[in-house]
């Protein structure tokens, strides 16, 4: 280990400095930023199916709400990005509570379909309310992110140009969400979520208020989705309702499933793999003369195969370390032997 660590540090520094180098490739940076946006989205979505065990098919709805909140506030009122991020997060979380509070008391299947319906309604709204969103024409002319310190010194105004500043901003966003979620995972909140996922009945008997914790999870997930959307709006500088269709939800879900439900690191790796796979498939399908949407053929297949053969995803790190402990392994085996059969009939 001693020899690898400095090597890793050099590698990390090299990656960090890459966008500043004169030969940095804009396309590569673009893809890396995209990966980081999806990392945020995957970590956000992971809370609901991963931590609480509820299928959320409408995640992109909150992403869209965040993006349009940011886009409209920028175009009409010129609000600063740094103010927009909390506003978008709050707006996303608000809709999460509004949708979650009445529906989260139902079984997971109904919840899945309600979230799906919600995200479709969001797209319909964005498409049809032309007075607000310009509909299918899209929302152009969104200002890039800027740092405005003119109240301190008249020259202190920087506007983001090119991909490099966005790279660092996205990196900061990923790290911030990552650290918050890692802390939440080990907190009372996270443990309550895991308890609900593993056995709602037992959790309720231990005094976990199931509905409240589920709504909190959904709101936080929605808020993170909205933050991702806000960044996306101020980075792409153009929004259209087509960007927030069901496919995006599916893609993010695929990342979470690939990395292992409930595994934050898995969600990060899943985002890297899926975005890269998407870029490769786009080229490959173009060569094969097929429409680019066909890449979802592979995504669908990936999802089915993983659920069939590797339901814990490709990176079940946390579960694996726990199972590696001989004491825990013996205990798990005994529990399985005694209660496994009963649990199967129970569920």
């Amino acid at each position, binding site marked *: 280990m001693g020899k690898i660590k400095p090597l890793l540090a050099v590698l990390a520094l090299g990656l960090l400095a890459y966008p500043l180098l004169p030969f940095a490739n804009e396309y590569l940076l673009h893809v890396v930023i995209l990966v980081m946006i999806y990392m945020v989205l995957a970590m956000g979505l992971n809370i609901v199916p991963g931590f609480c065990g509820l299928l959320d098919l409408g995640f992109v709805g909150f992403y869209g709400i965040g993006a349009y909140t940011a886009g409209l506030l920028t175009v009409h009122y010129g609000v600063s990005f740094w103010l927009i991020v909390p506003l978008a997060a709050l707006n996303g979380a608000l809709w999460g509570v509004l949708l979650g509070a009445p529906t989260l008391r139902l079984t997971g299947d109904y919840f*899945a379909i309600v979230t799906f319906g919600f995200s479709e309604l969001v797209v319909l709204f964005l498409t049809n309310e032309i007075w607000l969103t310009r509909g299918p024409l899209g929302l152009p002319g969104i200002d890039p992110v800027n740092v405005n310190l003119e109240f301190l010194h008249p020259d202190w105004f920087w506007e983001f140009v090119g991909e490099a500043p966005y790279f660092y901003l996205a990196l900061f966003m990923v790290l911030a969400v990552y650290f918050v979620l890692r802390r939440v995972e080990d907190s009372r909140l996270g443990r309550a979520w895991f308890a609900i996922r593993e056995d709602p009945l037992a959790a309720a008997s231990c005094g976990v208020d199931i509905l409240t914790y589920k709504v909190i999870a959904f709101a936080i997930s929605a808020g993170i989705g909205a933050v991702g959307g806000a960044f996306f709006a101020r980075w792409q500088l153009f929004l259209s309702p087509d960007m927030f269709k069901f496919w995006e939800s599916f893609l993010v879900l695929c990342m979470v499933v690939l990395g292992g439900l409930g595994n934050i690191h898995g969600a990060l790796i899943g985002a890297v793999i899926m975005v890269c796979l998407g870029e490769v498939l786009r080229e490959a399908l173009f060569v094969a003369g097929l429409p680019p949407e066909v890449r979802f053929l592979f995504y669908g297949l990936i999802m089915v195969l993983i659920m069939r053969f590797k339901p814990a995803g490709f990176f079940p790190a946390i579960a694996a370390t726990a199972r590696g402990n001989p004491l825990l392994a013996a205990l798990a085996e005994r529990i399985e032997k005694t209660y496994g059969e009963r649990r199967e009939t129970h569920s």
Partner: protein
Amino acid sequence: MLEQLLPQLVNGLTLGVIYALIAVGYTMVYGVIELINFAHGEVYMFGAFLCVTFITAVGMPFYLAIVAAMGCCALIGMFLDLVAYKPLRKAPRLAALITAIGMSIFLQNLAMVIWGSRPLPFVQSAVPAYLNETALSFSGVYLTWLQLFIFAVTTAMMLGLMFIITRTRIGTAMRALAQNKTAAALMGINVNFVIAFTFALGSAMGAVAGILVSVYYNSLYPTMGYVAGVKAFAAAVLGGIGSVPGAMLGGIVLGVAEALGAGYVSSLYRDGVAYAVMIAVIIFRPSGLLGKAVIDKA
């Protein structure tokens, strides 16, 4: 405004019986294995495409092609159960749901690879000419033979389905399974066979719905199952998931609501009506019109 009412009602009713035909597929599968088979909408789409393929590539007559497409879709349904859902019977619900979504996306894109992504017209030359003629007209309503054909076919299929479910051995087995899988197995019911049969039955009915819609609108495309599937699911929820008569009623109510909503409120939110109805029903009356409550036990 009012003279629009009757034509809108007829239009809504036509759509509604087709939704009902798809919805029974969802509700039957949900009844026996408690899974939302998201891929059901794709089976419906395959029904339409297979029918057209049988007409154009094999040269089958219209009615024979419908039967052949039904048979193929029944096989697709059983295959779906065999490869995707059966291995996950004992896995958590989430795994099965994710598989269902994955299958749906996979099949949709498979159709895109096979038949292309652009909408195709239905082969009009194969459709018997009388179907497009007006059969009845009264107070501003023109009913074509096609609409009567749709009503006749769906009614016959619904009656046949009710007969199978209530009067036959396998129907009894399906109902037993819906009540208690373990007890049904102990009574000597071959659980996996009954589940496969349920998939086949639902898929065959979905295929007919797909064909009827594509003839009615003279258009078929790989993503047609996506919206229709959700609407039919909404119909199943509206009627009370797990209840076959409920699915029929839900489909008709939803079809009429959609037509009236599009006619009197805003045609832009045509699809939104279905989603809004669905969300409202799930929030305020999750048991649906004719179903039993499904509140989470915990």
